[in-house]
């Protein structure tokens, strides 16, 4: 008996460790994005995100001396700090060819009789016999170690910048307005169809199932023009009705396919007993099938919600891209600028738009429960 318990607990340990490894693998890339969303674009492009977590020594991009000049002992002098914050300089220079020419505290002789001294805490003193007004001040190359530095600037920019800020709440509501009906309606329509395909006898049933699976592969890009043409022709043009219909159409095949697969696995006896008791198909569907199919309905709802939430293409085509009707994804993508490539904004917007789907997943997860069927089988 002890022996069995022993293997059991070691097995449990193995399970825990495997899950930890699996989760770590899957989470690792996202963590990178998350950390990056708190760094500036320059930081992301110049050092790995994992380095943002600890103190690093690096050669920094040149910093130009700037500040108000004051009259000094002989001539003028400018004092100031090159880098704000807790930075320790280990070497510095004023030429790109010799960026580590001087140690902290040493004084460099520059042209025109200027001298520059940089201390370890990155404070500096520049002296000049002539006024520096209207001349170019020197650049300083620092090799310094700086503590981790994070910024909320990206979030601030995404949420409040001129092009997005005012509209982001509107876009948020737009996206919700698109995705909630576009999740509920296909589920309902699909549930009835799935029941018919799973539990009703009629000729051509298997072929119909195959056809529905086949429709899953229709590339969206091809459907856009004929359908927008159709919407324009029947007069609904671009608007919410059109988006809902489009999402319903595109989401149906998977919904029917998933739900039918689940329903067909429900125990035959329950349905047959109900039929013997004189229940109609409609009653069986509403009173027995729907409640039993909750896990399947919930999982499909999660996915359909995710797709409509993250969708950009369908919304742009059927709803439009103007300021009033832009969805959240569209608004965030437009923030990236005409030439794209602003990783910090991308990272930040990814985390802003991921929040709601995750809440939905958590909320729906409790419906994915075990044992709805327990006890109902012989």
């Amino acid at each position: 008996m002890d022996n069995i318990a022993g293997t059991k607990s070691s097995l449990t340990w193995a399970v825990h460790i495997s899950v930890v490894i699996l989760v770590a693998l899957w989470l690792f890339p996202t963590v990178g994005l998350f950390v990056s969303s708190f760094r500036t674009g320059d930081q992301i492009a110049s050092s790995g995100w994992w380095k943002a977590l600890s103190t690093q020594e690096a050669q920094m991009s040149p910093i130009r001396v700037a500040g108000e000049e004051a009259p000094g002992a002989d001539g003028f002098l400018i004092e100031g700090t090159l880098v704000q914050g807790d930075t320790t300089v280990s070497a510095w220079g004023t030429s790109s060819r010799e960026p580590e020419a001087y140690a902290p505290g040493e004084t460099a002789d520059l042209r025109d009789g200027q001298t520059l001294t940089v201390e370890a805490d990155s404070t500096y003193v520049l002296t000049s016999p002539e006024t520096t007004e209207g001349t170019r001040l020197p650049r300083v190359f620092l090799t310094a170690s700086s503590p981790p530095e994070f910024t909320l600037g990206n979030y601030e920019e995404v949420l409040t910048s001129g092009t997005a800020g005012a509209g982001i709440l509107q876009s948020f509501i737009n996206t919700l307005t698109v995705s909630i009906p576009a999740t509920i309606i296909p589920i309902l329509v699909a549930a009835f169809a799935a029941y018919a395909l799973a539990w009703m006898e009629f000729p051509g049933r298997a072929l119909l199932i195959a056809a529905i699976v086949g429709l899953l592969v229709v590339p969206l890009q091809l459907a856009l023009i004929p359908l927008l043409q159709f919407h324009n022709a029947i007069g609904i043009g671009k608007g919410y009705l059109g988006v809902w219909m489009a999402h319903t159409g595109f989401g149906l095949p998977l919904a029917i396919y998933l739900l039918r697969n689940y329903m067909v696995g429900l125990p035959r006896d329950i349905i047959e007993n109900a039929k013997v008791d004189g229940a109609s198909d409609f009653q069986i569907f509403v009173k027995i099938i729907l409640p039993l199919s909750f896990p399947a309905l919930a999982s499909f709802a999660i996915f359909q919600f995710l797709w409509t939430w993250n969708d950009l293409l369908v919304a742009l085509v059927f709803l439009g891209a103007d300021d009033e009707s832009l969805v959240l994804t569209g608004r965030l993508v437009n923030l990236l600028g005409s030439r794209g490539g602003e990783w910090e904004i991308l990272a930040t917007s990814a985390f802003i738009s991921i929040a709601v789907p995750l809440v939905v997943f958590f909320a729906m997860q409790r419906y994915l429960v075990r044992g709805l069927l327990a006890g109902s089988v012989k």
Partner: protein
Amino acid sequence: MKNLLTGTALAVLGAGIAQADGHLTFTPGEGDFNWDSLTAFGEAHDLSGQTITMFGPWRGDDQALVESVLAYFEDATGANVEYSSSENYEQQIVIDAEAGSPPDIAVLPQPGLIGNLASRGFIQPLGEETQAWLQENYAAGDSWVSLGTYAGEDGEERLYAFPYKIDVKSLVWYVPENFEDAGYEVPETMEDLKALTEQIAADGETPWCIGLGSGGATGWPATDWVEDMMLRTQPPETYDAWVSNEIPFDDPAVIGAIEEFGYFARNDDFVAGGAGAVASTDFRDSPKGLFASPPQCYMHHQASFIPTFFPEGTELGLDADFFYMPAYAEKDLGSPVLGAGTLAFKMTENAAADVFMEFLKTPIAHELWMAQSGFLTPHTGVNTETYANNTLKKQGEILLDATTFRFDASDLMPGAVGAGSFWTGMVDYAGGKSAEEVAAEIQQSWPAE
């Protein structure tokens, strides 16, 4: 210098804050702008209550800029302009045109695509008056007219699109102080540029940063190189023949230009990261090598928009500058300039849209954007003093002084080539394929008429 500039910037900011209504960037009546042209325009046109839908490629900061210009149009005429854009704007515009719900005004950077839309009857011609206006008021007017002229549905050639907002491409960016530290001079001729390249390599440094990566459009920066080299090794007529495929893509003239690019990009000693890194380095990351410590490279060939991707706080003219990509002294081809830009066109028969196209002819429509950033214009009626800074002004002068101006060939070629095989071919070439082989493949992909 820096203090002076900051002072000006503060003054501009102050002016911005001081204005009463808050939605206009510059207070009407102040500065060097041609405010008269706006007032006159507003008096001539009343569009109160009318709405114009406009679709363009500008997003993010650029969207804020175009909307700041549109605000003046709305203010003057009372019209409401609904500007929108999207990530895959080319796709969006084609879908909308085909499905029958186009915007009133569309703006695109690809003349090839506009020509395609025109040939299917989706665009309204602009008329001969506008054509005459362009010839009259744009520097090198004829070349701009031909840029916006396409065959319509009936096969007849008309002016369909109006060039607005130009980028100059023949620029080499560098950090002046890095040049000074090493004792290099800005080259005046292509011979000098090549000598400088070899000298930097001989000094044990890396002369160039070249990056072709651009996600779905990877390869396009190389097409700019090849086009620039084409204009520097061949007369402009050959360039035109190449664009229209009158000479095949694998003509020795084209192969020569590709190999000129190869001189720079396929030499491990000449490019940061070695030739192998060229194709996959992102074009947006590539210029950052100029500013690294120690510098990863000394020069970067890219269009006038690239300062957007310089490290934050970089001051143009001080921390970074550009020089004109020089021509061969021995070839006597003048100083050719390669450019790109966006063209506006009408997709519906909305009378208010006609008024908007008229607005684009006023100097103020150009100056308002010039005074902010990233906008160059060949409009000869504008006050060049309104350019936001010296860098822009210098670029504007390159545009006005060009003895030869040619539009980006890849934008003019059919999409299958200009936004397809030309890009991929250049990636293959950077990866080691021979120029002959690559050019032959691109020629093969040229759509048969």
